[in-house]
């Protein structure tokens, strides 16, 4: 039967005899571009993981929070012509409030009426639809636009890779934000409270952590991190209401990093960024879309708890 003679898959093979010189240039360019896009994935992965670590909820709306924050900035800057020193903080505050209030008024209620985590996850799916719908409704997403770059986009050569000042600014800001967050999470009292909530919420409450406030703070900060990611990347991409799908790469990064490790998420972000660029340069741009999903599948099949994840624990009765 004809059905069983399966025809070949689309051709994804490497071009013939790519010479070594070219391969080396590609390699350097791939790493440089990968580190830049990877820093954005790392930020988003960090935003996802910090929530998962403390609430056990994978926030499926993270990509849409990222997208909506980008549009808030676009609206204030391009349509309202506000000065940039107002736009940046305003965007971050909006993202913080939106996420903190979602946690406080929606998720707390969901958690009250249903014990199961699945319901919380589905509620975040609902949020992702609402945000996407709202942005589409405003019509700003109808024509793809870019946020104007605040840093010159002249290219400079590092080794044999060409990068722009903007790229360097993205990378630098992302690393700074991540470092600041690590410091907060690991060395301040607030951070210690957050870690305590992640380990054992009841015990944390017993020693005086305000659970509700702590969760609001975490979700709010996660929103801020996503908003920063959006501000960084939006001069480089065409913004549409669907740009939140970039979050898949962040999920892939989080999984590579073990899903509950902050440094893991960051490393995962850079790994995914570099792999993505390599696939684009060496294999085919058609395969780029597929790469994160294959990465997720392969990593999870081989190591169900992620590359950097701890031992797998089975929930008892």
């Amino acid at each position: 039967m004809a059905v069983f003679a399966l025809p070949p898959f689309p051709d994804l093979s490497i071009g013939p005899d790519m010479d070594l010189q070219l391969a080396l240039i590609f390699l350097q360019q791939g790493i440089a571009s990968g580190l830049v896009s990877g820093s954005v994935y790392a930020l988003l992965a960090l935003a996802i993981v910090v929530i998962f670590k403390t609430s056990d909820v994978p926030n499926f709306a993270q990509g849409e929070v990222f997208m909506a924050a980008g549009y808030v900035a676009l609206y204030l800057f391009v349509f309202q012509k506000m000065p940039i020193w107002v736009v940046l903080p305003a965007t971050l505050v909006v993202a913080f409030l939106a996420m903190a209030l979602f946690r406080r008024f929606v998720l707390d209620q969901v958690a009250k009426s249903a014990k199961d985590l699945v319901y919380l996850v589905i509620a975040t799916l609902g949020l992702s639809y609402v945000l996407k719908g709202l942005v589409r409704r405003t019509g700003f997403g109808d024509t793809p636009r870019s946020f104007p770059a605040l840093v010159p986009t002249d290219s400079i050569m590092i080794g044999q890779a060409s990068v722009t000042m903007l790229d360097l600014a993205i990378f630098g800001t992302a690393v700074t934000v991540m470092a600041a967050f690590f410091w907060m999470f690991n060395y301040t009292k607030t951070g210690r409270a957050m870690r305590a909530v992640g380990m054992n919420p009841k015990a944390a409450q017993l020693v005086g952590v305000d659970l509700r406030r702590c969760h609001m703070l975490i979700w709010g900060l996660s929103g801020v991190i996503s908003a920063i990611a959006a501000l960084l990347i939006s001069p480089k991409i065409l913004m549409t209401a669907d740009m939140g799908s970039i979050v898949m790469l962040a999920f892939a990064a989080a999984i590579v990093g073990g899903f509950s490790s902050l440094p893991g998420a960051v490393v995962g972000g850079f790994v995914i960024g570099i792999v993505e660029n390599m696939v684009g340069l060496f294999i085919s741009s058609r395969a780029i879309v597929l790469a994160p999903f294959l990465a997720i599948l392969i990593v999870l099949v081989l190591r169900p708890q992620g590359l950097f994840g701890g031992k797998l624990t089975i929930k008892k009765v």
Partner: protein
Amino acid sequence: MSSPPLASSAPVRRALSGPALIGLVAAVVVTVALPVFTSGYVVYIANLLLVFVVLCLGLHIVIGETGQFSMAHAAFYGIGIYASALANRAVDLPYPVAMLFGALVAGAVGLVIGALALRMRDIYLALATFAFGEAMQWVFANWDSVTNGPNGLRISPARFGPIEILSDKQAYPFVLFFCLVMIGLTVAISRSRLGRSFRAVRESEVAAMAMGIDVRRARIVSFGLSAAIAGFAGGMFGLFQTFIHPDSLGFQTTILVLTMVVVGGLGSIAGAIGGAIVFGLISEVLRQAPQYQEIIYGAILILFMMYAPRGLFAFIGDRIREARHGR
């Protein structure tokens, strides 16, 4: 994942008295007589709703009964659609053979995914199945020589011996029949030893293991069955549709089915069926206002999770009970 509320048959039996029975009979009469007195469009919607009922039954098996968060339902549905359409085109046999072929292919892929997913739980399982679903959609859209890629595939008309199905009205009795068969099958599975082992796994894998249930087998089988039912729904789709495009087989569709199951009430077969019909109708109405569609969709999901996590019917039942007891 711990416990979505158990579906017990007692409230169903209680509800089947007096006015409820009349309502049920009326619903049956309307369902059967539908093609006689309505337009082709209404029948088309009815066909589509019946397909979604079957999709919900499939998702119910894996999420509702076994508690495994699968997010690849659209992929299995798509495999069923393509496999049955291609089989129907390749060989000259009655269409049910092609449908069974579609269900078998989807079921086989489901078994493989179930086996691969054995070591994963909760979030990891959700993400892995999600990734598989997206990867499958990519395959549908790029495997040009088989699926005709982004141009979509034309589905040739289904034939039952001498009868060739060319319209929605002609297809309706068959779609209805297959849907009822699938409902029967799901009830039978749910009441069997296998179904009980599924629910035991859902409640606690450790306790199930201690009772001598082969947890690994239960998980793999539930994935396979769920995928096969979704694949069969794909075959039903081919009964009245003439065209399939990979765009309609993405995450959106998985979420649509998940929403239906959740709106109906996770963990009950009646909920899955009712949810498919109620939410199917809602989303059909929303199609009239596309600019609000996503917002309303999301709002429904959020509101249900906030105030009626056990589903629409449990929610209404609770309100009625409260009213009766004068609270």
